[in-house]
């Protein structure tokens, strides 16, 4: 359940920016990009955020949406390249186990939806 720590980390990233926004600003949706190598369970992060969001008045109504990214897998035997939602160890085209992984380490806020557009300060 490291998602609670990740949710707290998200608040640590957001707090200085939130403090600089107008009084009436409220955050609606926060889209988090998460790669397979970060082992984030979307439901667990969404649930953890429901606790942590109460630490700042501007996020009390906010919800997290997880945008899962992929690992780019390359087969060294046949050259086939594909996107996988989790680490895989057999080439989907030729069956070789000689693979390379790229990416999949992402974990960051991709987009923030501000509810009160009139007070949007960014």
């Amino acid at each position, binding site marked *: 359940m490291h998602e609670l*720590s990740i949710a707290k980390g998200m608040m640590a990233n957001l707090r200085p920016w939130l403090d600089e926004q107008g009084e009436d600003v409220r955050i609606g949706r926060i889209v988090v990009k998460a790669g397979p190598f970060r082992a984030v369970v979307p439901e667990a992060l969404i649930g953890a955020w429901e606790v942590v969001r109460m630490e700042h008045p501007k996020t009390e109504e906010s919800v997290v949406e997880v945008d899962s990214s992929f690992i780019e897998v390359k087969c060294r035997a046949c050259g086939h390249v594909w996107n996988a939602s989790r680490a895989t160890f057999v080439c989907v085209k030729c069956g070789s186990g000689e693979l390379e992984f790229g990416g999949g380490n992402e974990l960051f806020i991709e987009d923030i939806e501000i509810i009160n557009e009139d007070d949007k300060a960014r």
Partner: protein
Amino acid sequence: MCLTCGCGNPEDHEHEHNHEHDHPHDHSADPIGQDLLAANNKIAQHNREHLRKMGAFMIHLTSSPGSGKTALLEATIDKLKERFRIGVIEGDVATENDAVRIRKMNIPSQSIMTDGACHLDAHSVHHALGHLAEDGEFDLIFVENVGNLVCPADFDLGEDYRVVLVSVPEGDDKPEKYPPIFRRADCMVVSKTDLLPYVDFDVDRAVKHARTITPRLRLFKLSSKSGEGLDDWISWIESIVPK
């Protein structure tokens, strides 16, 4: 000011150092695109700076519960205690059992009881380093994380090297089942090799999959109980720790 090491509260460290140069002020940082563990990573970097000032080198051991982390520490300390001043930080959900085992070898050991948390973070290690420093000076510090093959993967503690153990009774498919912890590791130790005759553990399979995840992964095969393979492990530590 941090009470444990006097080097500034690591949770708020950017406000404590002298600003003799201009740089973007953290308060205006755009949260979009920042790693969600940026705060932990900043404290981890601070731990590294703290270790350099101490003149110490830190190795982080992580694995499932029961894979032999503490036994490996005991065997390692036994071989290296005359050469290096060693300290240990022991993470566990409950009990100081592992720290007590280390203290019985007359080695200073700080216990971090997480009370339910499934991993250590840089902040808890920062405090433990501060307390450890009260016990003397160190060349080599080990951190043993909470036994867990999932949650510790993401958290940089400020270590110089991260070592993941897989014991042979656990099964050779651990790298396939738990890729993230191998993605962030520098070394893999296949432990309890004295049990290989009694279990179906294909070392080549485990290594192949672990190195698919992290090609540069350094490998050790050893038994802390029989001593088989320990010399390679000890030689590697001797080669990386500045002395």
